[in-house]
């Protein structure tokens, strides 16, 4: 396969063209010179001399051309070889890791300024990225502590209708802050994920933690795992929010007295079934948008739970599907990558 944008290609066709033009010009010039020089002699003798000369010289034209081309290609390859090292260095860089200084060893002088500029740009990006990342962590502390003061203060106030309503507001505010921070934390994390997590164990733990909420809402919560260990690509910090958000939604939306059932297949497919009001077909494409609130939304959500789910799903190479269930309710299916 010939790369038409490569330097070698550009050089090859220009040199070929040059060789062609020079050969034509030389032949024409020589012929003209011989004609002039042989004025007065017999022209067929002149022609014979010329033909003999060409017969002796013509083999050299392609040889010289090929040698020139080979030298040019060799020069280009050897001077650009250090770029391979640069590419490797750049390939290894990921967000969150300080960019290493790009190697300038054996680089042609023309390219050094470009490499320096790339180095600078990377450092600036890294600095901006660090600011963003620390912001999420600092914001967590700065928002949570006053909220803790507010909530503990409200809890010490005498019980009455007003206090109860304020307490509910504070709990709701805490949830929104927690979700915003979770989203910020996930966004500022690495874009590509390596590592694997045991889904069976994680799903069981998340379901156990949701038990008290299910009990409070009079929801029958069940889990069926097909394998005792089921590994999927991701980290606990990423997969846990998916399961928790989907499960909490299911418990909060399902009809009191009904069942929320989790099924984990051996191939890493998690389905969560509820008996809630369902999601109208025309709204399904929008449920993962941030702050989007559907027609069936509960009063005290904020529309971030599913946005968090989608954000993580994309990062760990999983897929998610939403479907209607036969006798009412919604089924979320997540296929994790293994």
């Amino acid at each position: 396969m010939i790369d038409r944008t490569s330097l070698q290609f550009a050089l090859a066709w220009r040199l070929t063209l040059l060789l062609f033009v020079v050969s034509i010009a030389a032949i024409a010039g020589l012929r003209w010179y011989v004609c002039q020089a042989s004025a007065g002699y017999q022209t067929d003798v002149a022609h014979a001399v010329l033909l003999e000369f060409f017969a002796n010289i013509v083999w050299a034209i392609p040889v010289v051309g090929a040698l020139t081309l080979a030298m040019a290609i060799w020069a280009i390859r050897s001077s650009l070889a250090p770029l391979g090292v640069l590419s490797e260095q750049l390939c290894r860089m990921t967000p969150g890791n300080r960019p290493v200084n790009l190697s300038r060893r054996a680089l042609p002088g023309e390219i050094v300024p470009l490499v320096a500029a790339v180095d600078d740009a990377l450092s600036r990006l890294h600095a901006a990225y660090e600011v963003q990342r620390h912001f999420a962590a600092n914001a967590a502390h700065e928002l949570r502590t006053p909220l803790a003061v507010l909530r503990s203060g409200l809890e010490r106030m005498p019980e009455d209708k007003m206090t109860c309503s304020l307490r509910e507001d504070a709990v709701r505010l805490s949830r929104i802050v927690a979700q915003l921070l979770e989203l910020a934390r996930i966004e500022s994390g690495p874009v590509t994920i390596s590592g694997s997590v045991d889904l069976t164990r994680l799903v069981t733990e998340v379901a156990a933690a949701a038990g008290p909420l299910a009990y409070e809402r009079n929801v029958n919560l069940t889990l069926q795992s097909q394998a005792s260990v089921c590994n999927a690509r991701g980290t606990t910090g990423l997969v846990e929010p998916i399961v928790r958000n989907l499960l909490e939604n299911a418990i909060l939306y399902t009809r009191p007295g009904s069942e929320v059932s989790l099924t984990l297949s051996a191939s890493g497919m998690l389905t969560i079934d509820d008996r809630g009001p369902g999601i109208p077909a025309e709204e399904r494409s929008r449920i993962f948008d941030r702050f989007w609130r559907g027609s069936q939304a509960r009063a005290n959500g904020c529309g971030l739970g599913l946005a968090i789910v989608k954000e993580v799903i994309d990062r760990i190479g999983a897929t998610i599907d939403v479907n209607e269930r036969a006798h009412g309710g919604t089924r979320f299916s997540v296929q994790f990558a293994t």
Partner: protein
Amino acid sequence: MRILVVEDETKLAAHVCAGLRDAGFCPDHAPALSDAQTLLATVSYEAIVLDLALPDGNGLDLLRKARRNGSSIAVMALTARDAIDDRVAGLDAGADDYLIKPFAMQELIARVRALLRRPGAVLGEKLCAGNVTLDSRTRMVEIAGGPLALPRRELLTLEALMRRAGRVVSKDMLLDQIYELDEQPPSNAVPVHLHHLRRTLTAAGADVEIVTFRGIGYMLSERRARD
């Protein structure tokens, strides 16, 4: 029972101390690591409520130092960061439990009580849930003040559930509590013991119930008010 509250946010510390005092504890407040160290060296505490982000350092350092010196004091870590790694770091450093801010005061008090009630810990004796009490030392169960006799395995099941009342206990965790390592439990052991335990508790008029979450675990809870 003396508890040390290490928290730099004075208002939050005041609320936490007031909450603990109302719950019958005797809290002292240290606004920084240095104060906490001084207090720990002079007063003997049963538990620490420890904020991890303090003006003069990380609470984890205090914790590590205390654990290195062989202290087995119960530690409840408070953190404003929720990244899983931070939690794991806290538990690795020797915290017994952690809460993420903002938290409900009842939750904090319940968790501190649970820590003090660990086997071998200070509040070793009485577990309560609804009108059921279980003395983990004498193995006596009472329902609304009246004694209740239970076979050994059902008693162990009840104890395991009461230690984590209001939270889900997995089947494996229950099996570990009920059977010795070298015993081979029958496959339906847990459901059978729970069936008997439920029947006995209901017959005796207990106002707690044991909820089954199929495939997940079991939870002992005060009976939900039916509306």
